[in-house]
């Protein structure tokens, strides 16, 4: 019996250990014998440059009333004249672009991941051996994560996000590190999901009544339009739980992942070489210390969610849903006892 329990306890970690790639081979893979051939096509800047907000503002203020506004707008022809002069920079890296206009999951390429630095792991001394299957080799004492593995896992995670969104699930994007805020908020708005960019309040899932009880909820129809008639039925409902959690820094959000595990909520996590991949359901082996890498991953997952939501709304317009909708009768019942609320009121 003891042996069986041991197997149950250790089997997840054993599964995580790669059998195909023994650890010893990792230390020999530093120096490739033949030079690696790389694609010569440059990364094209497919994403159109976002418009200058200043220009829009000036357009809006074309009917300038005050002298200061007139002075500000009078420079506009001058500026547009000088815009034609000089050279034009064609392919440049704009750090804002990955946040404002993230790429789609179909656009994932190894070059893109390499440029974002997703392959850089941690110092070899800090590794978690469970990540050996994701590691390509060692360079200057730092583990290098295999880019094709990252791309494959990222595509899988994007698929998961898209399907959950298409089935009307609540997707929570969590990135509590400094600088991840904007990417998280943008991804959540694309995927019509929810965001956490400050500390996860411990107990938000396990003790949701206390912590999220006062937060507002609403009843929507299949087209995501609010139905105010059901507002009175929402009073004594348990707090909501996400259906999928995406965590950009699992090392700092141990409590969040633990609560997700307890509540059977699947998780997607960015797993660096020092993190434990068994903590999350769908790991994405990648560098989690680079903002550019995590912003790229958040953006791609946000785009995936956007595609899923579009699909769901399209179905809803045809009068179909890919999930079992809650009925008006269920809403009127007491969520804890399953009895009609009217009968409950009479008892009291």
């Amino acid at each position, binding site marked *: 019996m003891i042996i069986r329990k041991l197997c149950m306890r250790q089997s997840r970690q054993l599964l995580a250990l790669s059998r195909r790639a023994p650890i010893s081979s990792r230390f020999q893979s530093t120096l490739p014998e033949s030079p690696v051939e790389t694609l010569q096509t440059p990364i094209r800047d497919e994403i159109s440059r976002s418009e200058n907000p200043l220009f829009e503002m000036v357009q*809006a203020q074309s009917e300038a009333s005050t002298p200061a506004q007139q002075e500000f707008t009078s420079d506009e022809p001058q500026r547009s004249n000088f815009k034609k002069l000089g050279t034009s920079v064609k392919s440049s890296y704009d750090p804002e672009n990955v946040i404002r206009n993230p790429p789609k999951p179909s656009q994932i390429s190894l070059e893109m991941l390499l440029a974002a630095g997703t392959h850089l792991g941690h110092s070899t001394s800090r590794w978690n051996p469970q990540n050996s299957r994701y590691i390509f080799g060692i360079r200057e004492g730092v583990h290098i994560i295999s880019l094709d593995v990252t791309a494959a896992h990222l595509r899988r995670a994007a698929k998961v996000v898209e399907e959950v969104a298409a089935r009307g699930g609540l997707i929570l994007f969590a990135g509590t590190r400094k600088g991840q805020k904007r990417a998280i908020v943008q991804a959540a708005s694309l995927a019509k999901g929810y965001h956490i960019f400050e500390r996860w309040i411990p107990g938000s899932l396990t003790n949701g009544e206390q912590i999220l009880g006062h*937060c507002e*909820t609403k009843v*929507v129809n*299949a*087209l995501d339009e609010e139905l105010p008639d059901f507002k009175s039925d929402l009073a004594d409902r348990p707090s*909501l739980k996400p259906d999928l959690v995406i965590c950009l820094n699992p090392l700092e959000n141990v409590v969040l992942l633990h609560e997700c595990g307890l509540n059977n909520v699947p998780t997607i996590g960015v797993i660096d070489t020092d993190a434990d991949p068994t903590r999350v359901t769908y790991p994405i082996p990648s560098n989690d210390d680079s903002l550019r890498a995590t912003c790229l991953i958040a953006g791609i997952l946000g785009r995936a969610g956007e595609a899923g939501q579009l699909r769901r709304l399209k179905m809803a317009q045809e*009068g179909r849903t890919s999930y079992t909708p809650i009925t*008006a009768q269920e809403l009127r019942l007491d969520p804890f006892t399953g009895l009609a609320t009217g009968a409950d009121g009479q008892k009291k």
Partner: protein
Amino acid sequence: MAWHKPNSLTQAMQSLRLTSTLPKPSLQAPRTTLNTLRTRTYATEAESAPAAAAPEINFGSFTQKPARIIPASPSYFSGSPRFTDHVLKLEALQAKHASLPTVATSEAPRMAWFKLPQFRDYVGEPVPMKKYKSLVKILQRLNRIQPDMVPDEVRNTLSAFLRPGNPYAVENVPRTVDENGRARGKGKRKESTAVVQLVEGEGEVLVNGKSLVEAFKRVHDRESALWALRCTQRLDKYNAWIRVRGGGVTGQAEAITLALGRALLLHEPGLKPVLRKAGAITVDARRVERKKPGHVKARKMPTWVKR
């Protein structure tokens, strides 16, 4: 999406169609169904008329059916969704208008933002002080946009965070001598408060209805009470009617000094440097320090005793 928000014309047409079709079947339907039952005896018998098409999907009821319960705000899981939404909205606004010219903090219009308890009432969430301070910082940055270039959306958003009744709207009117030639001055010292009514006259002084000698036994107190008039050599040029409350004799005398100095300044503003130098209009803000636990007085410690 056309069906889901029909315009008034199509609505009217639909209602017409409904009213024309609805009442008829209620009377005639039973008979027709009976007739059809009688005529169609066998299931295998071929139908005489082709089956009518299925009725249209009633999208109206589909849109009225509940499908999901979802959070009202994308910040639901942060625990304070309304506050987080406010912060995100303000940050977006700040980023949008970052290129507008700004003025120095001192020249920006003075705004009375919500105090923390008022803000907590406003959002209905227990917002910590530190987080509210960071929100006020964004408000102040938006408020620094050059006043004649502030976009309407910024102005409207900022006005939502102002506490009701603008305390900075009323400007302090400079005090002057009133129509009866009276100048009123107030002064405080220690626990005492003095109000002086000063008129031009022959040097009569009444303190709480008593003469100066009756009110202050010590010569030093009398000197200090009228110090503002004495140092400017105007003892015989003004009459003073003084009311003083609270505190002890010294405190009352020095409260009168300050009140008298301020009242005299209304009559003769040119005396300000003299009065300042003489110390007649300098406020002494010292008050008795509170006693602390573990101390005998404010600072005195009990004597050390060996065991």
